[in-house]
């Protein structure tokens, strides 16, 4: 019985993850400027990746607990390595997005339809040092 519960949760997580990853692609196509595209392309893929890799972890846990034939050999190794991959994505993706947004603003890309830009006259760190 708990077997079937695991199955339903796995399917739900897979559908949710695919939905958010497709939403990321769609937002990347349809949004007007760099910052909104960054918003779609990074946050949605991070959220979708949590669910897809979470479903992989659940499949491994199910094979580990109930000895089901989804994972033939060593499901514990699969669970731990998928968890490490998830931690890698969670650590690196927001950091890269922040660096990209800062680089885009400093290289002179303006937000589309923005009324004010509060960071416009703010000196960067190097100019303060001089």
């Amino acid at each position, binding site marked *: 019985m708990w077997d079937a519960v695991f199955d339903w949760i796995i399917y739900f997580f897979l559908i949710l993850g695919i939905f958010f990853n497709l939403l990321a692609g769609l937002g990347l*196509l349809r949004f007007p400027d760099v910052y909104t595209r960054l918003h779609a392309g990074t946050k949605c893929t991070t959220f979708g990746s949590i669910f897809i890799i979470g479903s992989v972890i659940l499949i491994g846990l199910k094979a580990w607990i109930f000895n089901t034939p989804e994972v033939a050999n060593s499901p514990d190794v699969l669970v731990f390595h998928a968890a490490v991959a998830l931690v890698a994505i969670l650590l*690196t993706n927001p950091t890269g997005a922040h*660096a990209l947004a800062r680089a885009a603003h400093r290289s002179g890309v303006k937000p589309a339809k923005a009324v004010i830009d509060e960071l416009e006259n703010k000196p960067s760190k190097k100019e303060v040092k001089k």
Partner: protein
Amino acid sequence: MIQIEPVYLGVLGALFLAILMAIIRVIKGPTAPDRIVGLDTINTIVIVSMVIFGLAVQSVIYIDVAIVYAFLSFISTLFIAKYLEGGEF
């Protein structure tokens, strides 16, 4: 003999659609940061599909490759961002 279940194949197909939309943004993108955002998205989705593929063909080595790919793509994104910013390394 590789035997991939239809569920995993459907997941990989949907992720490929997302990658395709990001590729269109990389080709079309008006500015350089647009293209880099598209590349970053492609990197994340490729990591996820590597994990799914490693489960589908029953070999954990693909997941290890995905971990290393995640950190390498992070480093490349940081370097390209630093380059766009125009600062000293």
